[in-house]
Structure formats: structure tokens, C-alpha cells
């Protein structure tokens, strides 16, 4: 993993020594090292001064590019209440804080983050967790403030991800620990009981070690007690809860089996009639718990529960009488004046007071192009300003804004009900009844002979304990989850796979899901422009800061002239200027013809061009759809009902119809609330809905749907709460994923059949009352292990054949 650096300065490409990005020039240099920007150089200097150049020796060009070079203001971290919310623990002398660092990507990152104490006095200790992408820092608050630490991290390129959700939660941690303890205890007991039962296995009941044998049996009881009362307790609790709700979940027959095993063993040992089945019981609990660990595979660096709070900034710049200061977003009140700089978010519904807003709502509403706002316009929370800084006044509090109200919907308050209709629970309902009736039948058959009747009854319950049945689901689905993960499709839990198999309808969001984020293709339609005219256009748009101008600027690959005279930019209309004694106008048709003709209302999709008063044509801005889209749609079209819900206007309807055909339904200008209720209405007609979306406006629909998958270009970036996160590069394989989920279900059913065969063999012994502890001890682990091997092998084999592995 860690290679020695092989830096070649004579290479034709100039690579930044710090971040590895290509340098436009070699102007920025220090000794023989070239940097792409001053930011990178500064970081290098900081590290060099502190003797930390090892950073560059561990990984090649490990740094994080500083091109953006934004000076962030962290004054809000002086707020005592906010500090309280962020830190884990303090005793006045030492404070512990955990930051999430999404930029962590290589071993150099780990190294520098763990050597923070060399950079600044006061930091006592820091420890990185690469998979979770967090760093735990202990510092002396008297020597260094939280703000200084955050500034330090930011200055070397590791900007901590601070948001309203506050602390990095570790709630599942104690649960995992408990499970590990239980496995440890069960495994320990299982191994030792096996050892002490050995003499009994070999003797086959003929040869007794008398006192020693007795002593071994009592030792086994001592080992089995913690397994029964501690390791297995979750099965009893779950079975009890199930029965109380009149549901025979899989834990009911398991709890029954464990209890019978334990009680009959105690009876045999204390009456001296046998050695009991404690080895089988502990092995069973051990294997079941191992299955649970396998199923609980989680992607710790990913967060499936995010809401708007983690998307919004933690603090904003506000303007007061005394000047600019920062304020935590939570304390924002209506009437506060906020300064929103380029690329910053609007945290609450506000009115524009000063400046020109180009608000990018693509993440919030699905509108693909930035919307121009002028003084007095309402700006909804969640929009992102593109362009120069604006000043706004809030009219609503953060939690009461148009978008954030979505989270007050019922869909968010109801808890994720564990889907009890899962396959294994359906099977176990019948299974429990069948084994109970078989056991009773066997007991009735031997009714005359009390010993035999008791033996047969308990033996049936013991051998029918559905260990293999209970293990097949976690191992199959756990393995499928891993296979999906390798293909950059990350699911929240194994239950999602089961739900994925019953999908009937698929709902797509448009912007960011069907289209590529941040890419829109501009076309010129009209008379062909000469090279000279292209230069004129390029020169004019260069002077404008409108986002559309930038797209047009990138369209023509020609050189521009030097100067524009009489340049004017009229908000919401267009731009005009005189270049080389030609008057060039770009904007709405109304603006160009100086009439009040209301032909094209929608400025964002068509922009007209006129040179010297003559209209030459228009620029149309079309979204660029994902290349794999036709393939995806043709695969899914015949199997599922497809829908498109877009927050954008219907300008692209004809293009989408080409792809989806007329049969699929498309809805435009959908608000986040409408999306949610659309999914709900589908579900009311007993459809199972798969929602695929990406933005905050899809959050409600994602939550409401049976399976909600959010698409992301960078899985460490924000994605709304969902059941799964799909890397956009794997979107083309979505049909393969759905198909493979169905395959997994078939594998589970097959393994059910296998485990039933084992049960039948065991039952044939049991009903005759001839189940010896040896047979039980051999049959139970073999059935379980063979089922585990079967499911793991088959899922891997089939995944390989389908190119998923």
C-alpha cells in the first residue's frame, strides 16, 4: 500500500507536488517542487516548517487540492453552547472531540491526522479511523480552542464536516460489542463442552467413566448456563415479542429448540440417565450468533439516515449593526440579515435584499438551471448561490421553511418497521405448527411407555430446531450485500434485498438521477456562425457572471477579443455590449426585439442571440442524460411500470418520451410533497415502489417508498436518507442488481429445502426415540455448516457468472 515515491520532474505533465493535480503553469514553485495553486504551496510550507514532510513520502501527491481557496470563517465556534454540542467529553483539562473528515483517502492522511500534536501545542492525541473517516482528538482547552483546531485542520486541507446533526454518533457501537461478548462466551462454552463430552462420544454409552463422567457433565452445565441465560437471550426476547403480537417469527422455533435442549440435558444429567445435548445447544447458539454478525455488515463511513440538517451549514454569516459576524443556524431568527457568498447555501426561507441571486435549486426542487432572483424575491431554503455575494433577510425559521417542513411528514416520524413478512418468518409460521404436531403425534404413539413418549417428544423439538433454516437467510443476504457493495451499491441492511425482490413499479427522479449532475450541454440552433461571430459571442459572455453565460463561453473553442464597450447586464432579461463596433445581444426574445411579445417565457431553456439587431438563432440548454440510460430503460421497461417525477419544467418531455416510450408516465413541476404523495398513492393500489432519486426534494418519496435508493457521484457527499446509496457509475447495472436480489431469494428457498431434508433424517431418528447425543451433535452442526457453505458458494458462483464479482 505504501510505496516509495517516484517523482519525475521531467515528465511532460506538470503535477502538483501536494495534490497531484495538473498544474496550469510552473509559476508556483518552491525549490524543485511545483504546485498547482498557492493554497497547496501554503500547506506544503506548513508541513515543512513542522518537519512533517513524511506526509509526502507515504503516498504519492497525497494532498487535497486547495484551488478553491475559500477563507472560511469559524467564529461561530466560539459559541459555548455550540462547543458543548460538538465535543464528546471534557473535564476542564482535557477535551475529547470527534470530527468527521470526508476527505480522508490515503495512508498519508491517516499519518498527518495522527501527528496533529506536532503541528500545534495543546493537541495531546489524535487517532484516525479510516473506514469511518473520523478523527478523534484530545486537546487541552486552556492551550488551544476548538476553533483553532478546526482552523488548523482546514489549513492543511482536511476541513471537518460540521453540521447541525452535531456529534458523530456511535450508537450501534455498544450493540456490536454486546454481540461480540455473546459470541465469545458461546464459542468458549461450545469448545469446552465438546472437549468434556469427548469421552462420552467414544464410549457410545457402553463404557462409563463413572465419577469423572459425572464431574464432566456438571462442568458442562456450568458452561452452558451463561450461554442459555446470556448469549441466547435475544432469541427468547424476540420470540416472546413475536408471540405477544401473535406472530410466529423464526425465533419462536429457535427459542423452543434451545429451551428443550437445555431442559432435557439438565434432566438427563441430574437424573444420571445420560450426558445431555449441551454441546449441540451451545454450538447452535454460537452458529446463530455468527450468522448475525455476518448479516450485520454495515458501511460505517456511509450514513443512511441523513436529513436536511446534515446538508445545511452549521453557521452562517450575518450582518448586524456592528458589522459581520457568524451565528449558528439553529439560533437563526426571522428578520436576521444573512450574507450568502458564492457556493453557499441559503439556510432558511428569505427575501433578497441586496445583490443578484443566481440560485441553484437542482438539489432542492430538481430545477436544472439556476434561477435568477432580484431584490424583493423570495428565496427558498436549500438553494445555493452561484455568483457574487448576496444579502438576504430570513422570513421563516430553519425548521419551518418550505423544504424543511417535508420532514414533519408522517413518513419520517414512523419508525422503520422491521418487515415481518420476510420469507423466513412466513416459513417458520408453518414450520412451528408442523414440528409441534409431529412431536405430539410421536408422543401419543409411544403413550404407553412414558420414557419413550418423553424422549420422542423432546427429540423431535430438538432435532427440528431450525438452525440451518435460520442461518440460510443471513448468510445468503449478507453475502449478496457484500457483492453489491463491491459493485458500489451500498445497502442499509439485508432486509432491503428481500424487499427489492417484490418491486413492481419504479419511480425515477429526473435532475441528478437521469441526468448527470453539473453537466448541461449547450447547443446553438440557427444560422451557422462564422468564426468572427463566434469570437464576438465569446467576448460578450465573458463579461457576464450569469451561469448560462459560462456554459455558452465554454461552447465555442475560439479566442476572444480583448474589450467590450457599453456592456450592460439587465437582470432576468439578458446582456448587451459593443464589440469591434458590432452590437451583440444575448437574452430572452422579448429583450432582443424590444417588444412585449410573450413568446418564450422560459429564459432558462432558450437564449436568443442577435448581432446588429438581427436575430441569428438561439442557444438551447439541454440536460445531458446518463449515457447508459437507454440501456437501463429498455431492460426495465418490460418488467416494471416506470414513472418519472421531475421538479423541473416539462421542457424535456419529448426527449424523455423517446427514451421511456408513451407508456410510462411522466410528471413535471412536482414539489417534494407531491412526490411523496405520488408514491403513497401507488402503494395504496398495492404496488411495491422502488424510488430512485438524489436530492433533498426526493427525500420524502425515498422514505415513503418500499425501497428508496439515492444516487450519488461521490458516496461520501451528502445523500438523503434512503435504503441504499448507489454510486452513479453503477447506475447502469441497476437491472442486474434487482435480478440478483431475486436470485438470492431462490438460493434461500433452495437452502430451505436442504435444511428440511436434514430435518427429515433427524426426525426419523427422533420419532423412534433413538436420538443419541452423538447423532444430534453431528447432525446439527453438519446441517448448519453445509447450508452456510452452499449459500455462500452459490451466491459467489452466480455473481461471478453475471459479472458482479
Amino acid at each position, binding site marked *: 500500500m505504501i510505496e516509495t515515491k517516484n*517523482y519525475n520532474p521531467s515528465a511532460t505533465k506538470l503535477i502538483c507536488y501536494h495534490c497531484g493535480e495538473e498544474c496550469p503553469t510552473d509559476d508556483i514553485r518552491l*525549490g524543485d517542487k511545483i504546485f498547482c495553486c498557492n493554497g497547496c504551496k501554503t500547506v506544503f510550507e506548513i508541513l515543512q516548517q513542522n*518537519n512533517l514532510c*513524511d506526509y509526502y513520502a507515504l503516498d504519492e501527491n497525497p494532498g487535497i487540492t486547495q484551488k478553491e481557496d475559500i477563507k472560511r470563517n469559524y467564529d461561530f465556534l466560539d459559541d459555548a453552547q455550540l462547543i458543548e454540542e460538538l465535543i464528546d467529553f471534557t473535564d476542564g483539562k482535557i477535551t475529547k472531540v470527534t470530527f468527521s473528515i470526508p476527505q480522508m483517502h490515503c495512508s498519508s492522511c491517516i499519518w498527518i491526522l495522527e501527528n496533529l500534536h506536532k503541528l500545534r501545542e495543546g493537541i495531546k492525541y489524535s487517532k484516525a479511523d479510516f473506514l*469511518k473517516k473520523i478523527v478523534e482528538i484530545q486537546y487541552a482547552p486552556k492551550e488551544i480552542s476548538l476553533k483553532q483546531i478546526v482552523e488548523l485542520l482546514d489549513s492543511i486541507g482536511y476541513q471537518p464536516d460540521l453540521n447541525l446533526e452535531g456529534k458523530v454518533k456511535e450508537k450501534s457501537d455498544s450493540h456490536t*460489542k454486546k454481540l*461480540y461478548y455473546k459470541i465469545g462466551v458461546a464459542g468458549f462454552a461450545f469448545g469446552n463442552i465438546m472437549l468434556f463430552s469427548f469421552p462420552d462420544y467414544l464410549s457410545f454409552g457402553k463404557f462409563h467413566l463413572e465419577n469423572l463422567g459425572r464431574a464432566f457433565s456438571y462442568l458442562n452445565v456450568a458452561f452452558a448456563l451463561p450461554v442459555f441465560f446470556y448469549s441466547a437471550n435475544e432469541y427468547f426476547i424476540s420470540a416472546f415479542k413475536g408471540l405477544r403480537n401473535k406472530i410466529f417469527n423464526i425465533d419462536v422455533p429457535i427459542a423452543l429448540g434451545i429451551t428443550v435442549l437445555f431442559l432435557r440435558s439438565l434432566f438427563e444429567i441430574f437424573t444420571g440417565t445420560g450426558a445431555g445435548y449441551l454441546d449441540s445447544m451451545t454450538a447452535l447458539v454460537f452458529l446463530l450468533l455468527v450468522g448475525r454478525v455476518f448479516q450485520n455488515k454495515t458501511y460505517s463511513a456511509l450514513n443512511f439516515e441523513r436529513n436536511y440538517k446534515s446538508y445545511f451549514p452549521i453557521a452562517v454569516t450575518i450582518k448586524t449593526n456592528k458589522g459581520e459576524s457568524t451565528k449558528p443556524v439553529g439560533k437563526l431568527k426571522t428578520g436576521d440579515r444573512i450574507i450568502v457568498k458564492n457556493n453557499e447555501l441559503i439556510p432558511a426561507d428569505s427575501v433578497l435584499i441586496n445583490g443578484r441571486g443566481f440560485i441553484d435549486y437542482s438539489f432542492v426542487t430538481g430545477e436544472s438551471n439556476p434561477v435568477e432572483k432580484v431584490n424583493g424575491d423570495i428565496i427558498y431554503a436549500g438553494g445555493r448561490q452561484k455568483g457574487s455575494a448576496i444579502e438576504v433577510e430570513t422570513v421563516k425559521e430553519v425548521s419551518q421553511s418550505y423544504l424543511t417542513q417535508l420532514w414533519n411528514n408522517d413518513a419520517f416520524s414512523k419508525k422503520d418497521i422491521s418487515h415481518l413478512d420476510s420469507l423466513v418468518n412466513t416459513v417458520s409460521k408453518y414450520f412451528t405448527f408442523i414440528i409441534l404436531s409431529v412431536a405430539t403425534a410421536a408422543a401419543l404413539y409411544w403413550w404407553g411407555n412414558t420414557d419413550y413418549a418423553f424422549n420422542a417428544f423432546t427429540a423431535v423439538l430438538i432435532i427440528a430446531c431450525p438452525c440451518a433454516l435460520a442461518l440460510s437467510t443471513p448468510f445468503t443476504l449478507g453475502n449478496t450485500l457484500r457483492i453489491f457493495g463491491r459493485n458500489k451499491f451500498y445497502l442499509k441492511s439485508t432486509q432491503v434485498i428481500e424487499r427489492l425482490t417484490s418491486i413492481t413499479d419504479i419511480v425515477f427522479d429526473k435532475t441528478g438521477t437521469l441526468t448527470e449532475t453539473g453537466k448541461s450541454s449547450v447547443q446553438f440552433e440557427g444560422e451557422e456562425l462564422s468564426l468572427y461571430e463566434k469570437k464576438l459571442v465569446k467576448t460578450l459572455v465573458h463579461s457576464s457572471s450569469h451561469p448560462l453565460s459560462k456554459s455558452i463561453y465554454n461552447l465555442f473553442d475560439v479566442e476572444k477579443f480583448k474589450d467590450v464597450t457599453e456592456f450592460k447586464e439587465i437582470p432576468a432579461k439578458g446582456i448587451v455590449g459593443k464589440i469591434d463596433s458590432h452590437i451583440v445581444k444575448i437574452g430572452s426574445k422579448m429583450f432582443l426585439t424590444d417588444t412585449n411579445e410573450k413568446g418564450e417565457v422560459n429564459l432558462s431553456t432558450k437564449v436568443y442571440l442577435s448581432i446588429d439587431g438581427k436575430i441569428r438563432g438561439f442557444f438551447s440548454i439541454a440536460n445531458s442524460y446518463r449515457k447508459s440510460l437507454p440501456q437501463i430503460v429498455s431492460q426495465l421497461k418490460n418488467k416494471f411500470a416506470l414513472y418519472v417525477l421531475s421538479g423541473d419544467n416539462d421542457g424535456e418531455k419529448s426527449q424523455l418520451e423517446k427514451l421511456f416510450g408513451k407508456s410510462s408516465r411522466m410528471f413535471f413541476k412536482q414539489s417534494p410533497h407531491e412526490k411523496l404523495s405520488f408514491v403513497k398513492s401507488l402503494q395504496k393500489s398495492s404496488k411495491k415502489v422502488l424510488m430512485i432519486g438524489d436530492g433533498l426534494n426526493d427525500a420524502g418519496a425515498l422514505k415513503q417508498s418500499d425501497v428508496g435508493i439515492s444516487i450519488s457521484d461521490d458516496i461520501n457527499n451528502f445523500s438523503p436518507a434512503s435504503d441504499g446509496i448507489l454510486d452513479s457509475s453503477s447506475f447502469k447495472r441497476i437491472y442486474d442488481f434487482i435480478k440478483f436480489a431475486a436470485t438470492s431469494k431462490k438460493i434461500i428457498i433452495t437452502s430451505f429445502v436442504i435444511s428440511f431434508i436434514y430435518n427429515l433424517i433427524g426426525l426419523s431418528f427422533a420419532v423412534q426415540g433413538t436420538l443419541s447425543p452423538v447423532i444430534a451433535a453431528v447432525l446439527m452442526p453438519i446441517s448448519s455448516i453445509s447450508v452456510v457453505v452452499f449459500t455462500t458458494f452459490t451466491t459467489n458462483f452466480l455473481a461471478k457468472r453475471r459479472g458482479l464479482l
Partner: protein
Amino acid sequence: MSVILVLIGFSLFVALTFLGLYIWAVKTGQYKDNYTPSVRILFDDRETESKDENENNGKDE
């Protein structure tokens, strides 16, 4: 035969020690992060080295 009792007692003692060590390992969070330590162990501890040497390293590269 009594030697067996001694051996059993000893084996139990060893087994319980390992169980205790395992529980200690889980408690101190050694199972929490099973990737970062594999990288961390490869870092050279060069705190005592002088600055010149670091600069030399820079030139070698």
C-alpha cells in the same frame, strides 16, 4: 487418575484466561476499527531525526 483433575483445572484456567483476554480486547475497542491499525503499523517513527535528513529525502525523490 487424579492427574487428570489437575490437568482439567489447568486447562480451564488457560481457557478462562483467553476468554478474559478476548473480552478485554472487545472492551478496549480493538474490534472497532480493523483497517487503520494495519496502515498505522507501517509508519516509521522518525521523531528524533533532524530536519536535514528530511530535506535529503526530498532531494532523493
